[in-house]
């Protein structure tokens, strides 16, 4: 068993930045476009994912010594589906207007590659506390990505944030259309790649001098 030797804080940071689900790993992309047409939807989706990811990591890590490796995939699926059902029903009860718009995508958290991957790669090999930290980090990383994308899309597409008007005038309608989601993610991804290249270049420059 390969226990991790990173501290909990490093694990959280790892999930937030260097292994960010959307911009770095490019998995679980569906909701990053589907529900980011307003800040509120993006925010709710992010919270749901933080909850599911953390709880799945916690549970898998707790039962890791009882799982037969041959049937681990169905077991992970069941654990994930259980937590998704919980968040699905809770949101249906408490957040009716938001749920009407993003309900389908909440149910589809089940099929998220990122949640499954963290259970398989991390939680099943590590003790409980690091697993929670890893889950939190991954969840927060996803949450941040959702916030960034939906911030730009709502601001440019509707001229408002969280439903409150900010900018007057004609908004760029295209940004809240389906196509705008693809553009926003593509441009942001390119931007982060560019920043990465800049930082790397500065580092090598500092080392040579």
């Amino acid at each position, binding site marked *: 068993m390969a226990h991790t030797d990173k501290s909990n804080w490093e694990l959280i940071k790892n999930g937030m930045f260097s292994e960010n689900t959307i911009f770095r790993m490019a998995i679980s*992309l569906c909701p990053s476009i589907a529900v980011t047409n307003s800040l509120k939807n993006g925010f709710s989706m992010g919270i749901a994912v933080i909850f599911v990811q953390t709880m799945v990591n916690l549970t898998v890590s707790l039962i890791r010594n009882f799982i037969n490796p041959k049937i681990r995939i169905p077991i992970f*699926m069941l654990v994930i589906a259980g937590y998704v059902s919980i968040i699905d029903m809770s949101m249906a009860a408490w957040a009716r207007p938001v749920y009407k718009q993003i309900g*389908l995508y909440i149910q589809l958290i089940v099929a998220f*590659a990122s949640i499954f991957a963290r259970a398989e790669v991390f939680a099943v090999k590590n003790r409980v506390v690091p697993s929670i930290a890893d889950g939190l980090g991954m969840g927060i990383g996803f949450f941040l990505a959702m916030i960034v994308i939906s911030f730009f899309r709502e601001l440019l597409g509707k001229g408002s944030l969280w439903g409150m008007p900010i900018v007057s005038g004609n908004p760029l309608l295209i940004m809240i*259309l*389906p196509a705008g989601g693809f553009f926003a993610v*593509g441009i942001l*991804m*390119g931007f982060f790649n560019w920043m990465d*290249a800049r930082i790397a270049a500065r580092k090598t420059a500092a080392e040579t001098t």
Partner: protein
Amino acid sequence: MDFEKLFQLVIAASLINNFVFTRFLGLCIFFGVSKKMETAVGMSITFTAVMVISAALSWVVFKYIMLPLDITFLKIIVFIGIIAAFVQSADTIMKKVSPALYYKLGIYLALITTNCIILAVPLINSGEGYSFLESMSFGLGSGLGFALALVIMASIREKLELADIPAPFRGLPISFIVAGLLALAFTGFSGLITL
């Protein structure tokens, strides 16, 4: 059975509500396997077949087991179970019956289990209360729509390999922007049929 209605469902699911460009599902696979035409075609065939069959299977289970027992709140767990079991058994049967086909399409089968479209189809079917044939046509339309998107995207990306793209945008970012342009084109289909 009303044939016209079924045809409308197929057209609506494949063009107007195309899963990739208007509902944004299955994007991981969409960007993952659209690099080459050959894999895109293999994936499309497997995908459409699995979609129709799993739509039919889950309709039967939903109608005759879950509704009478009043356990519809378990539908997420049950549907993912049905799909995983079906894909696993298709994998095993294919390996025994037709090894040649298995080596061609087997890897795609393994990828399919964790795909959101396959799960979305039964969920939408049960939500809309479609009949058996309607469910299957919806599955077929969704599969064809996904295949269409995948093939268009793969042919564009093969050409993109040769293009001179600014360094930060190489790879995924430019594919996203291309997908955005395609999505714009697909919005042209809205209003083709009103159901």
